[in-house]
C-alpha cells in the first residue's frame, strides 16, 4: 500500500518522517535518488532536462508549477510531471510539501494568493494520486486517513465549520440528520432504510455518500489542515527574528511561477489575454445585474443596489478591472491621481442610476451620498476629496454569491454568467470578447476590401 504520508503529509507518519529527514542542508543540492525516481517514473517525459527536478527545492517548485500550468496552459502536458504521482517519491515529496508550507507561511502569509494556490494544489495532487490507485487500495487509504482525522464515528456538522466557512464543503452536499453529518454506511442504513420507498437503501447510500463524499471530506480536511499549518508557521515566524534564507528563496520562486503564469495564461482572475488595462467603460459589456441597476431600482433594494453593489462595480471596472488577478490593494488615487476620472466618469454614472430609481435615491435620502463616498475609500464626507482618502476602504465588487444573498432580485443570469463568479469578471470577459469580435470583423472588412 502507498504511504499515508503520500496522501496526507500532515499525518503522524508524515510528521515523524519529516523529523527524521528534515534538515535544511542539502535541499538545494542534486539528489541522485530523486533524479532516479523521477526518470524511472512511468510515462515521465525526459526529453528535456528542465522537466526533471534535481533537488528538494526543484521538486517543491514543480509541485506549484504543475498546478498553475494544468489550470491555465492549454498546451499543458501531464507527462512532464508524472513523477508527482509515483508513490516512490513520497519521502522527497513530503519534504517538498513542508518546504512549501513554511516558505509561504514565512514570506507570503496565510491570506496570500501563494497560500491559496498551495492549498488548492495539494487538494488536486491528492485527487490525482488517489485516481491512480486500484479501488480497494484507494478505499483502504481513504478510510485509514479519515479515521485518523475524525475521532469518532458520528460528527456534528459544526465540527466541519472551517471547511464550510471556506466553502471547501457545501452544507447542501452533505447528508445531515439531527445535527450530524452521515458518512458511515451502517449509520445511514439505520437512520433512513425504513423511510426509503421503492429504492434500494444500499445503492442510495453509495450514490449520495459512499466513497465519493468520504474522499471529498478527507481531501478537504487535508487542505484545511494545510491552510492551518501555513497560518501557524506565519504566526510563529512573526515572533522569530530571521527566517531561513532558503525559505525566502523558495517563496520568491513560487511567486515567480505564479507571476509568469499570469503573464502567459491569465492565471487567477478568470481573465483572458493577459493583463486588463483600465479604460473607458463599455456599457455593452455590463452583466445583466448591472444593466438592471443602471435602469433604476424601486424602493426597498435601492440603497444596497446603488451604494453597496453599483458603486464598487463601476469604480473598479473603470479604474482597476484587474483587481482580482493582481490581488494588490490600491487606493483610487494610485490610478486616478487628480480624481478626474472619478468626478467626470464614475460618479455621474452612479448618480444617473440613482436618479432613475423610484423615488430617486439621493433626492429621498441625501445622506446616502456620504455612504457612497465611503465605499470609494473617501470616508464619511459630503465630497470626494484627496485629503479624506484612506479613511475608509475602497470596497471591491460583490461576488455573484453575495449578490444572491443581498439582492436576490438582481440576479437574472445569462449564458456568460455560468463561467464567472463576480460581475467584474463578467465585464472583463465581455470586454475581451467584444474587442476580439470587432478586431475580427475589422480584418474581415479589410480582407474583403483588398479582394475588391
Amino acid at each position, binding site marked *: 500500500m502507498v504511504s499515508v504520508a503520500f496522501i496526507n503529509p500532515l499525518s503522524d507518519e508524515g510528521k515523524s518522517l519529516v523529523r527524521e529527514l528534515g534538515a535544511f542542508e542539502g535541499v538545494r543540492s542534486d539528489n541522485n535518488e530523486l533524479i532516479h525516481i523521477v526518470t524511472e517514473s512511468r510515462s515521465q517525459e525526459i526529453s528535456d532536462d528542465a522537466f526533471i527536478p534535481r533537488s528538494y527545492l526543484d521538486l517543491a517548485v514543480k509541485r506549484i508549477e504543475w498546478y498553475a500550468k494544468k489550470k491555465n496552459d492549454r498546451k499543458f502536458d501531464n507527462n512532464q510531471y508524472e513523477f508527482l504521482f509515483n508513490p516512490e517519491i513520497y519521502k522527497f515529496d513530503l519534504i517538498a510539501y513542508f518546504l512549501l508550507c513554511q516558505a509561504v507561511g514565512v514570506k507570503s502569509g496565510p491570506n496570500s494568493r501563494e497560500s491559496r494556490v498551495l492549498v488548492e494544489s495539494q487538494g488536486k495532487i491528492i485527487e490525482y494520486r488517489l485516481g491512480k490507485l486500484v*479501488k480497494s487500495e484507494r478505499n483502504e487509504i481513504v478510510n485509514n486517513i479519515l479515521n485518523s482525522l475524525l475521532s469518532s464515528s458520528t460528527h*456534528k*456538522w*459544526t465540527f466541519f*465549520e472551517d471547511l*464550510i*466557512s*471556506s*466553502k471547501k464543503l*457545501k*452544507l*447542501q*452536499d*452533505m*447528508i*445531515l*440528520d*439531527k*445535527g*450530524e453529518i*452521515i458518512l458511515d454506511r451502517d449509520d445511514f442504513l439505520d*437512520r*433512513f432504510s425504513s*423511510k*426509503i*420507498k*421503492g*429504492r434500494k437503501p444500499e*445503492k*442510495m447510500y*453509495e*450514490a*449520495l455518500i*459512499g466513497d*465519493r463524499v468520504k474522499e471529498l471530506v478527507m481531501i478537504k480536511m487535508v487542505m484545511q489542515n494545510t491552510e492551518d499549518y501555513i497560518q501557524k508557521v506565519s504566526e510563529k515566524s512573526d515572533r522569530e527574528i530571521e527566517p531561513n534564507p532558503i525559505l525566502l528563496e523558495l517563496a520568491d520562486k513560487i511567486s515567480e511561477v505564479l507571476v509568469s503564469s499570469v503573464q502567459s495564461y491569465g492565471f487567477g482572475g478568470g481573465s483572458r489575454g493577459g493583463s486588463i488595462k483600465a479604460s473607458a467603460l463599455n456599457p455593452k459589456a455590463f452583466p445583466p445585474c448591472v444593466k438592471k441597476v443602471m435602469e433604476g431600482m424601486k424602493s*426597498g433594494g435601492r440603497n*444596497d443596489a446603488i451604494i453597496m453593489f453599483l458603486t464598487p462595480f463601476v469604480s473598479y471596472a473603470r479604474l482597476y478591472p484587474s483587481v482580482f488577478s493582481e490581488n494588490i490593494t490600491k487606493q483610487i488615487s494610485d490610478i486616478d491621481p487628480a480624481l478626474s476620472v472619478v468626478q467626470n466618469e464614475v460618479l455621474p454614472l452612479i448618480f444617473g442610476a440613482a436618479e432613475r430609481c423610484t423615488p430617486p435615491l439621493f433626492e429621498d435620502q441625501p445622506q446616502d451620498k456620504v455612504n457612497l463616498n465611503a465605499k470609494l475609500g473617501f470616508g464619511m464626507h459630503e465630497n470626494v476629496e484627496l485629503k479624506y482618502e484612506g479613511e475608509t476602504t475602497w470596497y471591491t465588487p460583490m461576488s455573484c*454569491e453575495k449578490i*444572491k*444573498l*443581498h439582492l*436576490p*432580485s438582481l*440576479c*437574472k443570469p445569462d449564458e456568460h454568467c455560468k463561467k464567472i463568479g463576480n460581475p467584474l469578471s463578467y465585464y472583463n470577459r465581455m470586454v475581451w470578447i467584444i474587442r476580439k469580435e470587432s478586431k475580427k470583423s475589422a480584418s474581415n472588412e479589410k480582407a474583403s476590401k483588398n479582394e475588391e
Partner: protein
Amino acid sequence: MVKIEYLTPATPKERKQYYKEEWNIKQVPDFVTHSIQEREFGFDHVGRGPNDRYKVFKTPDLLKRFLKVRTPFAAYCSVAFYDKPRRRDGWNKAELVFDVDAKDIPIRTCNCEGVCEICLNEAREIVCGIIDTLKGDLGLSNIHVIYSGRGYHVRVLDNDVMGVDSDVRSQIVKYLVGADAPENEYSLDFEKVSYEHFVIPFGYPKVFTERVKYSILHLNDKTELEDVNKKLLKDVLKYRELIKTNEWGLFKNKIGPQRYKKVVNGIASLNMSLVDAKVSIDLKRILRLPSSLHSMVSMKCTEVKNIETFDPFKEAVPKFVYERNK
C-alpha cells in the same frame, strides 16, 4: 379579532399608554434579559430609524425605567454579545437569526400592498418549515420565534452556532430555504443512477422538496418564475393537485422532465427571498426588542409560544387599539 385597517401608526399618547400601562419588563424574554449586559440597544424616538444606538443597560430594571420614561417609537437590541457593547467592541458571539417579512415573501397569494392576514399566515407557514429543518437536520434546539409586527424573527441561541461566521450563516440560509436544486444524477462505479429530490426522504433533498411543494401550492397565474413561460406556468397550476398528494413522479410526467427542471430551478432562485439573508449574515445586527411596540403598525413585537397556533391579530394587538374603536 382586530381588523387590519385599524392597525394605523400609534400616536405618542398611545405609545406612552402602552409602555406605562400594558408593557412589563417580564415580557422581555429571558434570552435577552439574561445577557442584557453584553448586548447593544438601539432606539428610534421619532420614527426615522434607530438613530439612538450604542446604549447599554446593566440591569433589566434600568431598561424598564428607560422605556417607561422615553416611550420610544421603536426599540431594538443586538443579536451580538460583546465585551464592550457600548463601543460594539470585543464581539464574542451572535444569535443565528432568520427574518421572514410577510411583505417580502416571493410568492404571496394575497397580492396586497403591505401585509395582511393572508401573507402573515404564509410567513408563519414558512417559519414552521424553517424550524423543522433547524431541529431535524441541523440538530438545533434553543430556538425562539418572535412576531416582529410585519413578520417573524427566528432567533437561535445554541452555543454551537453562535460563534460561526457570515460564510457559514449564508450556507445555513441556503440550506434552509432550498436555494439550489439538488443534483439528480450520481455516478457509481459502473453506472449512473438518477434520484430526483422527491424520492430522497432525508437531508437537503427533502428540505428542497418541501420548499418546492410550498411554492408550487402558492403559485398563481401572475407569478413570474425565471425561465418559466405562461404556458408552462398554466400547466403547473393545472396539475399541482398531484403535488398535494405527493405524486411527484406523475406531476413530473405531466409537465415533462425538461420543463420540470425549469420549474424547480425557477423556484430555487426565488426561494432565496424567503428570508432576508442580509439579516442572517450580519453579525452585529440589531433586531426589534421582543415586547416592544411596533408603532408604525400598532402591534406588539411578541415572543411566540406556539407557532402552529399563533394568531398575531389576537395575541399581538395592544389594548389601545381596541380602545380606538370604542
